[in-house]
């Protein structure tokens, strides 16, 4: 906040006396800040409905982008989880015998860019399919096993980037005896692109809503300034500095920000609690490690501080525009 210490103008006093006077002035300056902070808080309580409305508007406006940011963080967690378990499914040609498949498995396993290879022969593949697909009866009508031998290739830790997996898959596909290679890179990339897009959208939204918050505060403060016009004139007339006149309004902005931040925090916790059950069930259905991350305590504190800053900024803009224009001009008795 802009500060402007009072200057003692009287001269010719003892140094010791002026030192203790300076301490007094500093002390009363802090006391004044405390008093102004308390009083502007009290004013908000005195108009509870109006204050609550402003807090709610601010809370909603701030909770939305933060909620989306949290969702984004959760989605990034999903793709990271996928990468750590990335595997390439390599379908071998139908005519390959089990021995040839085992030889191929050794060959692939000896590659430097492969960590582990698992061979699933066609019989066990069929057995597993029969067990999990629920199509057992239909399978009985088939004369022979339609499934090929399959190699499950796990790239080493270092190769588990989208590009690395893609390169390995292409090389595997070129090997003789390999019919087809399948990597779920498609959806990983889609998710990546979507996450990036979403991230930008969230920042745009956050920016717009941040502006909205500043405008809401600014307008509220503008009304407060109008209501206290007489007081401002008198204070300026008896020698109040601009900083002195601004101070209560800046504190009001900060209190509005704090209230809005608390509402936003509350809304976030509430929605998280409400959504967490269904999301867990949904994630379980898809065998996913997806979980909605909540707001950690330091994040919540950052939110509050940020909200107070926004409130202060909104108040500052209003004060800059409307307060400096109020000058004692026309006293009585013209």
């Amino acid at each position, binding site marked *: 906040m802009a500060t402007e210490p009072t200057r003692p103008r009287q001269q010719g006093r003892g140094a010791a006396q002026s030192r203790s006077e300076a301490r007094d002035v500093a002390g009363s300056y802090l006391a004044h800040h405390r008093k102004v902070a308390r009083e502007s808080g009290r004013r908000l309580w005195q108009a509870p409905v109006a204050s609550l409305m402003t807090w709610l508007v601010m809370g909603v406006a701030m909770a939305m982008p933060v909620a989306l940011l949290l969702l984004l963080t959760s989605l990034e967690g999903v793709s990271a989880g996928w990468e750590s378990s990335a595997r390439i499914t390599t379908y071998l040609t139908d005519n390959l015998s089990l021995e040839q498949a085992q030889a191929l498995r050794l060959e692939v396993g000896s590659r430097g860019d492969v960590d582990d290879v698992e061979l699933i022969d066609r019989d066990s593949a069929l057995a597993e399919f029969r067990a999990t697909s629920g199509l057992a009866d239909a399978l009985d009508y088939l004369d022979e096993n339609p499934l090929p031998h399959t190699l499950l290739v796990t790239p080493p830790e270092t190769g588990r980037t989208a590009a690395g997996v893609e390169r390995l898959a292409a090389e595997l596909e070129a090997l003789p005896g390999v019919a087809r290679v399948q990597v779920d890179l498609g959806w990983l990339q889609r998710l990546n692109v979507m996450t990036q897009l979403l991230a930008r959208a969230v920042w745009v939204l956050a920016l717009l809503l941040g502006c909205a918050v500043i405008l809401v505060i600014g307008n509220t403060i503008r009304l407060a300034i109008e209501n206290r016009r007489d007081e401002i004139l008198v204070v300026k007339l008896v020698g*109040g*500095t601009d900083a002195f006149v601004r101070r209560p309004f800046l504190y009001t902005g900060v209190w509005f920000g704090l209230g809005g931040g608390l509402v936003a925090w509350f809304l976030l916790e509430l929605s998280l609690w409400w959504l967490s059950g269904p999301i867990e069930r949904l994630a379980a259905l898809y065998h996913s490690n997806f979980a909605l991350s909540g707001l950690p305590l330091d994040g919540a504190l950052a939110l509050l501080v940020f909200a107070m800053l926004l409130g202060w900024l909104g108040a500052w803009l209003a004060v800059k525009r409307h307060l400096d224009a109020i000058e004692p001009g026309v006293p009585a008795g013209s």
Partner: protein
Amino acid sequence: MIEFQQVTKRYGSDHTALKQVNFHLDRGELAFLTGHSGAGKSTLLKLIMLMERPSAGQVVVGGQVLNNMPRRQVPYIRRHIGVVFQNHQLLFDRTVFDNVALPLEVMGVPTRDIGRRVRAALDKVGLLSKEKMNPMQLSGGEQQRVGIARAVVNKPPLLLADEPTGNLDPELSADIMHLFEQFSQVGVTVLIASHDISLIHDMGRRTLTLEHGRLVNGGSALGGMAHGH
């Protein structure tokens, strides 16, 4: 204490409220500023208060030239000038005490000194018993005295009053004027704008008379010469 040198004040491009005003007021002097309505009395006081700036000439207060005073210095100048208005400009959302305390608060006076000094000021205007009341509960004369207490609470060397008795009956007006006299006796320079000719006459003090923006009486020798141009 106050010196006007060839001060001209124009509002807009055509209206001239003060024309080449010259005068000098000594420390501790009490003077009246009179003239018909619209003569420029309030304008002259506003120039001293830095509520307006002169179009030409110089205003010097307490040895400081006010013309080019930067905006951020204005509050510190105003702290040395007490002002009293006809409509007293009291705040009705706080007590008499808090109204009078305002100039001290603005200056950052420690809280424990504020109580003592506010009560001293209220005592001087005879309102010590009403410190906890809301100014709305007071009579017009009492309200005006609260305004005076507020103007003198920080012991300014200069006291300005713009029609301080405008709303009051003659007896109360005389009371208020005697209060101003007491302040001038302890060395405060006092300048009172009023069109109450009879009251001014009774006081028998130096009187500056404005007529359509010109100082026609009571200025310095220099002022008289300027008038002759």
